[in-house]
């Protein structure tokens, strides 16, 4: 009864608060807004269950960050309002009191999150809305997400918020509970998932579901799933709900036990959690006789000049800093993450699972995140700023000292600036912790080339400014709104805007508080040209900050009259000369920097929103798509004269193309195209031609030849490309020509022949929105016309003279014929002896050059001087690859090979004909190349070398489904062979595990077959696994032979172009009939095996042999494109292996193929020695999602 009364009173109080309704409004707005911007995708109805579930989860996160004060109010309002003595002394029991209050908070929160499913429902079913075709209304969908996802989350969160607030007697502490709950479990879940490679950890540990549900299981949903599937209360999800509900119950129990119905002895935040060290002594009032001792106060000199203001500011700053530093989470939270970064640095400093040298550049990349980046753990910093800004602004008033402090002779600006500087000092301390964490990480990882200067620049220059700007905004909002919880909501909204401006339809960084075009740092390029624009933007935002400062000062809350109306009324009186000056300077700075930036981003450069970009692509297709089928001559020779001016970000290219008509008909028009930013001019043909169309907006030109180009005939066209980066753009684009880091391809700057289909919009939904005809991502394998077109028809020889700055070395494809200096510039002459396909790049930097040789192939390596630790490894891989591929597939077609470091953050490598580019991160990979390790970089180089045979200038497949298999899968397979040859079984097995690991990531079972592969996962992962499996079944000689045969039957660029069907045919010929079923399963179908060893029994026989019995469970399913799983009978050959104790997979006691059928069966063997473990498919040749149950130990 009492509890009910308490509940009702509390509930009524919470519901009457404006804050509660504001939360409700924001949550509803969230559902409506997200519904507006989300595109359901192909084959999915707008009101699908995926959307309902995902929005409920994300809305739950939003609620968590907003709604903390509801539980906080219920738990700690009485203590904070100091009404607790009246309540504690009533005969109400602790259980009734806390119980009633908690239930009221829970009820209000539960009703709030109910607005998420209700909002979605309203969005679709409010009258007068048009959504196209909807699925029928299914009430249980909304009930399911509410009761299984939203409500348990609310219970857990409310419990934690309530406990925090109740035990600290402070309302705002509940926000810290939210912060911890929003960040830590997700962080732990994500790291557990990535470190342990098991994604069920994320699903188990994440209470909110952003990582565990939306990022986990829901990623496996297929289009039909998305329409109808719901989270089922089973498995890991069930366990998650049980664990968290139990945790919440435990937390509540703790709150109940620890909460005392006593006057809080001290308002120290964790009074109940820590024992007080010593009791307070009461100071007695002396002189009880009274009157005798009079009080004399020494007369002191006081002054109120500038010096005093300075000291007051300092005192204020120190006090503000002290307050945050003393807070339990003030320094610890950031410190803990920094410490964890240092301790677990080995897990962070990785690229593709391979350790990286922890250079300062790398570490900074981990430590510095933009303020609005919500996916980095450093999002705690802006969130803490939000929280502490409120605490600071309200510090005096919360403590009841407001009147005393306000009556002190301190100007408003000192109070305001003091708090700002205190917050700034805390930010400085945080950044100091970050830096310590970073340096700690480097020390722990054994890297000792510290670059303190770079740390200071990146953290105490760039990051600090960003955080300070944000801190100032937070303070001003708290001052203006003057309502702690509502200000917090407003700031959260502002933060969301800063994090996802494009969701609000704003993209220009001039309109997003604190925004800038971004900056980067790499060892080669340094900060490049990014600092200047960054600085301009920060100046611009500093101008705004000055105005904010003025606003904050004029509206500063002082005294008892705090309404905004009153403050606005007295604001004019607060204007002083200094205020005017700051305003004038701020406005002046704002106008000058703003217009300068605008001039750069919108006048000197074209400003395009994302939507503009898509519209451009759509219009390009609408206007010129019809030319896709019109035949064009082939580019057969390219001659360039390139003048690079890296310091000016400028390049001039004079080029000459030789075009040959390889079609069977005469051609009378030539189409030339380019990127819109890279206009070319001075086009001259060596035969009479007239420009018919010049569309510079779309980079498309048509020339009519007076006399048609007859089959077999050729013509030459000359042109000039001039490119210079004028000013800066609103967003950093790929830098093309920069000091010590020029790297551009022909696609970036040079004209191309014909219509460029790759520029079309790929995404089906966006195509539909732009009224473009539906088409598959890739043309079908069975479309005959498409099989006549490669990705690029060009098969060109290449010759270039590249001039660059004096200190730099220019690199281009081919053999370096000569190099010279002229007019203070260096020139390099490169030339190829064979066609290099249609893709090449030009680079220039201060390279160190190393030369080597393999047989009669010259090898030249260009690298950044300090990135030399992997050069030998790369060279070994290059030579081993040349040797292996030449022997297996045919000769290497060029006389030279170039390996060059491409400036930029890339962690991998890429190949063009006769040349491989590796990224700066690749250069500092630090793999374990011992026999027990895994030398992935070695493999990567072998993979890129394989492209000299597969793809590029050699095997150019038709641009249809499966093309990626011919290019990438064959290279993966080839690279694996080289890895195995030089490093042995263990490294290869590591690579196989690496391929399988991608299957462990939550993904849909639905995918195309390898023959019709259309995504990178299939090209790189499944293709590699399938070819590897096949090589284990029929022998790698046979597979290699098939591949050699495929290559030899083709002449590059000649019709018919190869497809996966040709590969399949070759493989089929090499495979015995008994294994044709395997080819079908691997290449033609989307087949999964489910293999499990259920029992392993080994008994010693009388003769000393060991009789082994394995109980095997086997199943094979084929998943079709709709996600339907069909079990197919199996009668497959599968490896069965037995292993002795202490012996690895490479030393089996027994390894033979057995026929295995569907279902449970026994396999019996006799071996001479005692096996310790055994099972089916030990080498993981099949596509099996559960590989850990293939093997069994004795006695399991």
């Amino acid at each position, binding site marked *: 009864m009492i509890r009910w009364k308490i509940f009702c009173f509390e509930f009524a109080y919470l519901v009457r608060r404006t804050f509660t309704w504001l939360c409700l409004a924001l949550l509803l707005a969230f559902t409506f807004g997200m519904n507006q911007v989300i595109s359901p995708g192909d084959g999915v109805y707008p009101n699908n269950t995926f959307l309902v579930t995902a929005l409920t989860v994300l809305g739950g996160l939003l609620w968590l960050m907003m709604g903390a004060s509801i539980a906080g109010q219920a738990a700690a309002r009485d203590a904070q309002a100091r009404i607790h003595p009246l309540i504690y002394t009533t005969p109400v029991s602790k259980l009734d009191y806390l119980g009633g209050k908690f239930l009221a908070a829970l009820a209000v929160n539960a009703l709030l999150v109910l607005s998420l499913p209700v909002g979605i429902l309203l969005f679709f079913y409010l009258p007068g809305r048009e959504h196209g075709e909807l699925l029928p209304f299914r009430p249980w969908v909304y009930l399911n997400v509410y009761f299984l996802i939203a409500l348990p989350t609310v219970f857990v969160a409310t419990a934690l918020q309530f406990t925090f607030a109740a035990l600290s007697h402070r309302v705002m502490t509940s926000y810290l509970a939210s912060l911890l709950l929003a960040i830590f479990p997700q962080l732990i879940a994500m790291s557990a998932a990535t470190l342990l490679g098991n994604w069920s950890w994320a699903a188990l540990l994440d209470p909110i579901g952003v990582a565990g549900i939306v990022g986990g299981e829901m990623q496996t949903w297929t289009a039909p799933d998305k329409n109808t599937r719901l989270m089922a209360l089973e498995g890991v999800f069930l366990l998650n709900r049980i664990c968290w509900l139990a945790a919440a119950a435990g937390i509540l129990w703790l709150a109940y036990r620890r909460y005392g119905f006593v006057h809080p*002895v*001290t*308002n*120290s935040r964790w009074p109940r959690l820590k024992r007080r060290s010593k009791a*307070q*002594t*009461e*100071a*007695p*009032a*002396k*002189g*009880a*006789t*009274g*009157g005798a*001792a*009079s*009080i*004399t*106060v*020494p*007369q*002191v*000199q*006081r*002054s*109120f000049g500038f*010096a*005093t203001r300075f*000291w*007051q500011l*300092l*005192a*204020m700053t120190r*006090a503000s800093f*002290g*307050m945050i530093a*003393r807070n339990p989470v003030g320094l610890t939270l950031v410190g803990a993450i920094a410490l964890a970064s240092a301790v677990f640095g080995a897990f962070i400093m990785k690229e593709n699972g391979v350790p990286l040298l922890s250079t300062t550049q790398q570490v900074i990349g981990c430590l510095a995140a933009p303020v609005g980046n919500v996916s980095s753990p450093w999002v705690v910093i802006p969130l803490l700023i939000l929280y502490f800004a409120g605490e600071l602004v309200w*510090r005096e008033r919360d*403590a*009841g*000292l407001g*009147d*005393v*402090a*306000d*009556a*002190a*002779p*301190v*100007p408003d600006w000192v109070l305001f600036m003091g708090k700002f500087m205190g917050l700034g000092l805390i930010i400085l301390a945080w950044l100091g912790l970050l830096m310590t964490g970073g340096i700690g990480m480097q020390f722990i990882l054994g890297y000792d080339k510290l670059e303190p200067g770079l740390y200071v620049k990146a953290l105490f220059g760039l990051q600090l400014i960003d955080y300070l700007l944000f801190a100032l905004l937070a303070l001003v909002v708290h001052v203006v709104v003057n309502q702690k919880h509502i200000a917090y909501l407003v700031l959260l909204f502002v933060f969301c805007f800063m994090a996802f401006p494009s969701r609000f339809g704003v993209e220009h960084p001039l309109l997003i508080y604190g925004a800038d075009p971004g900056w980067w740092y790499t060892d080669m390029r340094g900060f490049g040209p990014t600092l200047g624009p960054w600085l301009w933007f920060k100046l611009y935002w500093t101008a705004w900050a000055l105005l904010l400062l003025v606003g904050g000062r004029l509206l500063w809350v*002082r*005294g*008892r*009259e705090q309404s905004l109306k*009153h403050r606005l009324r*007295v604001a004019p*009186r607060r204007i002083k000369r200094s205020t005017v000056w700051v305003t004038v300077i701020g406005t002046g700075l704002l106008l000058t920097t703003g217009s300068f930036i605008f001039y750069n981003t919108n006048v000197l450069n074209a400003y395009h929103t994302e939507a503009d970009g898509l519209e451009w692509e759509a219009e390009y297709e609408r206007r010129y798509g019809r030319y896709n089928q019109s035949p064009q001559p082939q580019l057969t020779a390219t001659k360039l004269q390139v003048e690079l001016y890296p310091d000016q970000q400028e390049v001039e290219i004079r080029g000459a193309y030789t075009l040959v008509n390889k079609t069977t008909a005469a051609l009378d028009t030539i189409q030339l195209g380019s990127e819109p930013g890279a206009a070319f001019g001075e086009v001259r043909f060596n035969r009479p031609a007239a420009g018919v169309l010049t569309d510079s907006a779309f980079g498309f030109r048509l020339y009519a030849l007076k006399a048609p180009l007859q089959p077999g005939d050729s013509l030459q066209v000359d042109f000039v490309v001039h490119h210079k980066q004028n000013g800066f753009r609103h967003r950093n684009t790929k830098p093309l020509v920069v000091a010590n880091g020029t790297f551009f391809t022909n696609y970036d700057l040079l004209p191309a022949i014909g219509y460029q289909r790759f520029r079309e919009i790929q995404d089906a939904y966006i195509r539909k929105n732009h009224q473009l005809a539906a088409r598959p991502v890739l043309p079908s394998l069975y479309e005959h016309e498409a099989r006549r077109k490669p990705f690029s028809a060009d098969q060109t020889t290449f010759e270039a003279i590249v001039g660059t700055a004096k200190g730099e070395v220019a690199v281009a494809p081919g053999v370096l014929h000569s190099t010279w200096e002229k007019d203070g510039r260096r020139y390099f002459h490169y030339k190829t002896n064979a066609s290099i396909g249609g893709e090449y790049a030009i680079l220039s930097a201060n390279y160190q050059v190393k030369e080597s040789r393999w047989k009669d192939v010259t090898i030249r390596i260009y690298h950044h001087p300090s990135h030399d630790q992997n050069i030998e490894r790369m060279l070994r891989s290059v030579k081993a690859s040349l040797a292996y591929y030449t022997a297996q597939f045919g000769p290497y077609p060029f006389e030279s090979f170039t390996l060059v470091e491409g400036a930029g953050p890339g962690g991998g490598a890429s190949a063009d004909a006769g040349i491989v580019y590796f990224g700066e991160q690749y250069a500092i990979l630090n793999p374990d190349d011992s026999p027990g390790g895994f030398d992935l970089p070695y493999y990567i180089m072998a993979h890129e070398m394989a492209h000299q045979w597969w793809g590029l200038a050699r095997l150019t497949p038709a641009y249809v489904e499966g093309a990626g298999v011919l290019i990438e899968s064959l290279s993966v397979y080839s690279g694996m062979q080289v890895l195995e040859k030089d490093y042995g079984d263990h490294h290869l097995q590591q690579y196989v595990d690496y391929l399988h690991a991608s299957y462990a990531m939550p993904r849909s079972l639905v995918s195309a077959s390898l023959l019709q592969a259309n995504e990178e996962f299939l090209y790189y992962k499944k293709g590699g696994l399938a070819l590897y499996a096949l090589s284990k079944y029929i022998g790698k000689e046979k597979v290699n032979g098939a591949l050699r045969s495929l290559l030899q039957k083709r002449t590059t660029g000649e019709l018919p172009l190869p497809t996966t069907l040709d590969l399949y045919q070759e493989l089929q010929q090499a495979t015995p009939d008994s294994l044709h079923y395997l080819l079908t399963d691997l290449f033609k179908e989307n087949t999964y095996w489910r293999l499990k060893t259920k029992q392993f029994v080994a008994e010693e026989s009388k003769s000393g042999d060991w009789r082994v019995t394995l109980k095997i469970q086997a199943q094979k399913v084929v998943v079709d494109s709709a996600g339907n799983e069909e079990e197919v009978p199996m009668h497959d050959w599968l490896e069965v292996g037995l292993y002795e104790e202490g012996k690895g997979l490479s030393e089996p006691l027994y390894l033979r193929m057995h026929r295995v059928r569907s279902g449970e069966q026994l396999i019996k063997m006799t071996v001479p020695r005692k096996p310790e473990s055994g099972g089916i498919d030990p080498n993981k040749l099949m596509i099996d999602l559960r590989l850990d149950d293939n093997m069994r130990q004795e006695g399991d």
Partner: protein
Amino acid sequence: MENQQISLSIRNVSKTYANGVQALRNVYLDIPAGMYGLLGPNGAGKSTLMRTLATLQEPDSGQVFLGGIDVLKQKEEVRQTLGYLPQEFGVYPGVRTEDLLDYFAVLKGITSRASRREVVAALLKQTNLWEVRSQKLGGFSGGMRQRFGVAVALLGNPKLLIVDEPTAGLDPAERVRFLNLLSELGENSVVLLSTHIVEDVSELCTHMAIINKGLILQDAAPMHAVRELQGRIWRCVAEKGSLPSLEQEHQVISTKLLGGRTVAHVYSEEDPGKGFELVQPDLEDVYFTAMAGYHHKQELPQVGEVQS
């Protein structure tokens, strides 16, 4: 320093809160240097007036001058000579006593470290907080906190000291010490003391005002006010149950229990008759007379004249 006696003039100050409560109605007062008592029941408007004088609030109309300083406009200047002890305040729980006082000393403009140390030590000793100077304020009792507030108010030798019900939480000995201190300060500062305890005023103040429902009922020197009542306050012992009829017939200003019987004080300019005896009036009688509305306020100059 100038040796001029400072004084405070309040001119027609009115304040009405948003909820309609008229906290101050046309308050007009001249407060000379020395101790000035503001006497009134709870909710009379004392705190509103005090806060207005302490620059924390603005009246709807009227003017306030402290010497040549316009209190409502030149807040910064006022604050430089102001000591304020609010009726209710808190402290930062996690901060040491000494540190917080030192912090306030800086805010009050005492920037020299040495003199700050001296002042802080002196004030802590005078307010008997020296023993607990390194303890955190969170555990202080009401009296200790009040003493701390006094210390803060006294920082920087204020010329205008506004103390809002300062003796409420103090024990008798403390109270005496504190009042002594105030009277010393009153020698060349304006000390404005609000209270509902008549003794506070009678013991200390050279001037006082009685305020109720936002109106100043009386503004006089206590001695003078008492003298004015000479011969007008009569006492009678009322029998049980006869009080209502007594109140009907006479102008009863107060009643109190004395040894189980009710003693009533009656205001009358003539002898009210049998059973009444003339008493020597005290300040309490002044207060109750004013509260009961029998004091006729003298005409005061209405237009704000600035003290020269």
